[in-house]
């Protein structure tokens, strides 16, 4: 299925509002999905026999910069039977001053690959995934302060008495 056919399929199934935008300028076109609907969209894309995106290649948490205050998650899906690829994105405005983290639905129930990738996004970018069963830090120690891949990150001076 081509990019436009997938888009039409999603609109037919979930309505116009599920796709909030698209990026067509780069080498790989991307669909921007409404941030609350991503889990059901992924499930449909995985199970629909015309798309069959059964393999989640990569899941990346992104901080889009200090001026924009925008956080997002990028999903790279592949379909092994059809040999196609698709990029999905979700984005959300988040004011950094607040205590709680930017939050998106977890796709852990759709692909188990997402389990560790979401933990990594939580660990390094500080994105919370709703209904993730095991959201702990994965690469950094449990008592590390801050999220290193955020654009406003400042490393702590000392970690257990060791200079960072």
């Amino acid at each position, binding site marked *: 299925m081509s990019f436009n056919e997938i888009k039409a399929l999603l609109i037919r199934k979930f309505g116009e509002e599920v796709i909030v935008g698209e*990026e067509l*300028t*780069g*080498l*790989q076109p*991307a669909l921007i999905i409404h941030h609350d609907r991503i889990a059901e969209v992924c499930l449909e894309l995985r199970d629909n026999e015309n798309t069959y995106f*059964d*393999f*989640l*290649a*990569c899941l*990346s948490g*992104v*901080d889009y*910069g200090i001026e924009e205050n925008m956080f997002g998650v*990028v999903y*790279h899906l592949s379909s*092994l039977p059809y*040999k196609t*690829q698709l*990029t999905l994105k979700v984005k959300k405005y988040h004011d950094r001053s607040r205590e709680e983290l930017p939050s998106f639905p977890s796709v*852990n129930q759709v*692909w*188990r*690959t997402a*389990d*560790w990738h979401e933990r990594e996004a939580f660990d*390094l970018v500080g994105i919370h995934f709703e*209904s993730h*069963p*095991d*959201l*702990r*830090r*994965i*690469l*950094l*120690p449990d008592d590390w302060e801050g999220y*290193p*891949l955020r654009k406003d990150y400042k490393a702590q001076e000392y970690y257990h008495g060791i200079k960072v």
Partner: protein
Amino acid sequence: MEANSNTPYKTHYEKLISEAESTEMILNMGPQHPSTHGVLRLELITDGEIVKEVIPHVGYLHRCFEKHAENLTYQQTIPFADRMDYLASMNNSHAWVMGVERMLGIDKEIPKRIEYIRVLVCELNRIGSHLIALGTYGIDIGAFTPFLWCFRDREHIMNMLEWASGSRMLYNYIWVGGLYYDLPVGFEERCKEFIDYFKPKMKELNELLTENQIFISRTANVGILPLDVAINYGCSGPMLRASGLKWDLRRVDEYSAYPELDFEIPIGKGEMGTTGDCWDRFKVRVDEIEESVKMIEQCLERLMKDLKRTTDFDPRAKLPKKIIPKAQDYYLRAESPRGELGYYFITDGKSEIPKRVKARGPSFNNLHVISEISRGILIADLIAIIGSIDIVLGELDR
């Protein structure tokens, strides 16, 4: 793995540890344990010799690859990409370089000789990496000799790659738009010599280890990974192929010089037990070495005939002066010895430094499945399973 809103535990991990029974023991395997192949800690909940649950703890070798990549130019990041999977540095830098070249739109202009040299060194490196996987797997299960044999043969590859790049393991040889240097004079002949020497050695290794009855008893029907589980967990490379799926990105994506080469994709057939068991994963790597040998022979033939070195050939001729890709997102995937290696770039079109880079290491996803396939097995079998996954912690923790 239900969403745990009604339980008093914050994470699934807390639940597992808190609800372990008094007859069960929580045992740490690693981080300093030779069979974990690096600094990996596995927390086991055991009942006698039976493993009830495996909880991997990773991150001991985290070296902030993604943070470094956000502060360095594309060319400067190549040595860091090398250090991700330190057993297959060429494959790592090849993937990185291909991603940058495609974003710049110069991937079609790379001379054929350079593409062939890249594939040649990548396949040599793949053999070296698989030899370590096979040798250390033998030693995990108690066969010492194959380990020494594999390291002896790998040493030839190390020497050749050192001759070409100046370094034994971390090469920084493949550059954006070209190569560091052309192959040294006489490299092709030496490589041919090595291939002639190496082919019978694989036969010996098969006789000693692959078809050894003790080895088969330890690995066949152990750690069976069904295909649907493998796909859902994002396993790739030999893990996925051993479960019975012909999926090789060198064929699917047809990048670099691979479409012009003739090679098969070996898959697991369950010859000794069930499809997707440890023996199949081992056998797929053995077969892949033979395929790589075939590819190297074809590369050498072309490099010595129609793509011969000329005095005016400069592998740095196409090197871009400044690497500033247009503002875009790009995800590149390539087949490293361990599976799908991906780099996701976000660029802003103004600076020589990417805005965000995410690396998708194949070991990261391959290891994740271990808790799924290791419930209810013996501790000794767990060692067999870890070895058959062939993780490299440098890439897992990045």
